[in-house]
């Protein structure tokens, strides 16, 4: 007890010192904070402002919203110029959803083994998963393109979903392993002593506790899948292309005029749901990102 006594005094002294430094140090921090906010928000803000601005004023430099219109969104979703952005959104949901569900289902078992069991060859598995996460996608394009051409899969959903599963599996496993390591596994042991089988103990006791971790991992996997462009650009057809491919080759009525405003509207449609998701779950996402990144 006695050694705790100086604590408030030290804290008070620190506060006084902090107040003295307030101006110089905080000034620099505030400038930094404003800079980071501008960094993250300004380009995104400009995209949204342009999306809602009359296309005749696309290159206006007025920093606040002017000439408000929904015309760009109509153009972005219209199918008259050979675009089908609504279908692309559905395709991305299908590809992202199925990939995430399958990768999570497979990943749970591996993550459980890596987090809970000390077994021979564990480092080999960790190494393989790590190697796969750094693997250059481009090395797969040629064989997969040829293989899928041979079996008539080009333009099918599975041609994109199956490779995507292997790309997000390492991320899923790392994030889940890291989360699993922090769970109170004594509860599982307790359930086992009460007569539950190992699978029951995991499913009924541990999985509910891990639900937030699973949810975070699902968000990360979904965002990673929706982000994929290289393989989709080679393996999809007009009917199955995801939003990344659709936005990359978005065309207007006049081939000589880039439909900037409609593209910004399309970008806004894709981005705003993702941004809302990120804002709602930012704390979880950051813990998931750093769990998979720093600890891996």
């Amino acid at each position, binding site marked *: 007890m006695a050694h705790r006594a100086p604590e408030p005094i030290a804290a008070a002294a620190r506060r006084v010192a902090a107040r003295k430094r307030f101006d110089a*140090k905080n000034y620099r921090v505030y400038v*930094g*904070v404003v800079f*980071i906010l501008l*960094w*993250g928000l300004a*380009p*995104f803000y400009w995209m949204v402002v*342009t999306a809602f601005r009359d296309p005749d004023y696309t290159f206006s430099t007025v920093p606040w919203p002017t000439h408000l219109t929904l015309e760009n969104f109509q153009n972005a979703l219209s199918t008259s110029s050979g675009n089908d952005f609504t279908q692309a959104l559905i395709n991305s949901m299908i590809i992202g959803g199925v990939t*995430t*569900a399958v990768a*999570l289902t497979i990943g749970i*078992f*591996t993550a*459980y*083994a890596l987090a*809970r069991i000390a*077994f021979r*060859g564990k480092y080999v598995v960790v*190494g393989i*998963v790590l190697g*796969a996460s750094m693997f*250059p996608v*481009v*090395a*797969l*394009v*040629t*064989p997969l*393109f*040829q*293989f899928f051409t041979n079996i008539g899969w080009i333009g099918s959903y599975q041609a994109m979903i*199956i490779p995507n599963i*292997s790309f997000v*599996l390492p991320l899923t496993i790392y994030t889940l392993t890291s989360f699993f390591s*922090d769970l109170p596994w004594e509860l599982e042991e307790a359930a086992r002593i009460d007569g539950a089988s*190992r*699978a*029951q103990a995991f499913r*009924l006791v541990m*999985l*509910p506790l*891990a*639900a937030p971790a699973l949810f975070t991992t*699902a968000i990360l996997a979904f965002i990673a899948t*929706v982000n994929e*462009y290289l393989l989709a650009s080679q393996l999809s057809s007009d009917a199955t292309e995801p939003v*990344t491919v659709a936005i*990359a080759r978005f065309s207007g009525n006049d081939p000589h005029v880039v439909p*900037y405003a409609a*593209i*910004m509207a399309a*970008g806004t449609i894709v*981005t705003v749901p993702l941004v809302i998701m990120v*804002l709602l779950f*930012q704390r979880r996402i950051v813990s998931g990102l*750093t769990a998979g*990144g*720093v600890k*891996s």
Partner: protein
Amino acid sequence: MAVPTGAPTGTPGGPPARSAAGDSFPGRGPRDDGSGEHGSRNDLARRRHVGPSSRRAWFLVGPTLVVLAIVIGYPIVRAVVMSLQKDPGLDPETGMFVEGGWAGFSNYTHWLLQQCPSPTGAMIACPPGTLGSQFWSAVGITLFFTVVTVTLEVGIGLWMAIIMGSSFTGRALLRAAVLIPWAIPTAVTAKLWYFIFAYDGIANTLFGTHILWTSDPWPARVAVVIADVWKTTPFMALLILAGLQMIPNDVYEAAKVDGAGAWQRFTQITLPLVKPALMVAILFRTMDALRMYDLPAILTGGNPATTTVSILVVEQVRQGFNSASALSTTTFLLIFAVAFVLVKFLGANAVRTQEVQRQGAK
């Protein structure tokens, strides 16, 4: 998917979450249970406290290894086999269409020595403008992008992390702002910067310049670097911030008492202690940068000045599978070599760092 619906109510022991999470892999649990404990139930019961057996672990890891073997292992082997075959085409000697056949390493020498068959059948230097003449320039551009973007991202990311770590007001707001560039898909990012860097766009207006950002060689490269740094630095900052927060505050207090200045505290405490996390982040970012494709491909629309090796492979795919396989295998070996050098010389041993930190975190 059942998992997201279960998660918001997923506080410990919540019944809705329990059923939702349980539904997310129907049938899996029981089947898993049966095969894992068939032969060794008594054995397991006796040494329950030791934990499940090694065989069980491999059983759990199996599906992952199978998926990775099918989608990554098999195509790699196939690519190597294909790269040693000739692409079907006209035989320069007979003028007949031939179906390919054994090529030896000629596909590799085609890229590495930039040699193409001439109409007479002799090997000559690939004419400018063909893909064959672009290999080494693509390698150079890829390495340029990698070194420049990773350096900038580490530098700015470190600074951002320190700012985010020392600001207590609006931390959530900062975190949200920093996550936005990360959340936007790269293809959308590319189009967004394509608009910003348009001739009449906001970049030229702000700087009062008239630069053709996406078609002139150096402005195009700068544009790609700016867009990539914008998108990825926040991610870097978050990783570094997590590393910074592991450093106990006492260490700084002690150094202050000993009279260390702010710069000394940064170089003597922050940098060495954040180094393991930083090295892992650098390794991952370098691997990412070496395979860069989306940004240059979309932002500059096939400008040869920003053709990375990945873009070169994709352009070659439709002109001959076997030659493309040789190129992608070369790319793979190149990236593997860089990873090897990084791990060896920078000590960025990700596996070990992970284990050490996991044990430390426990």
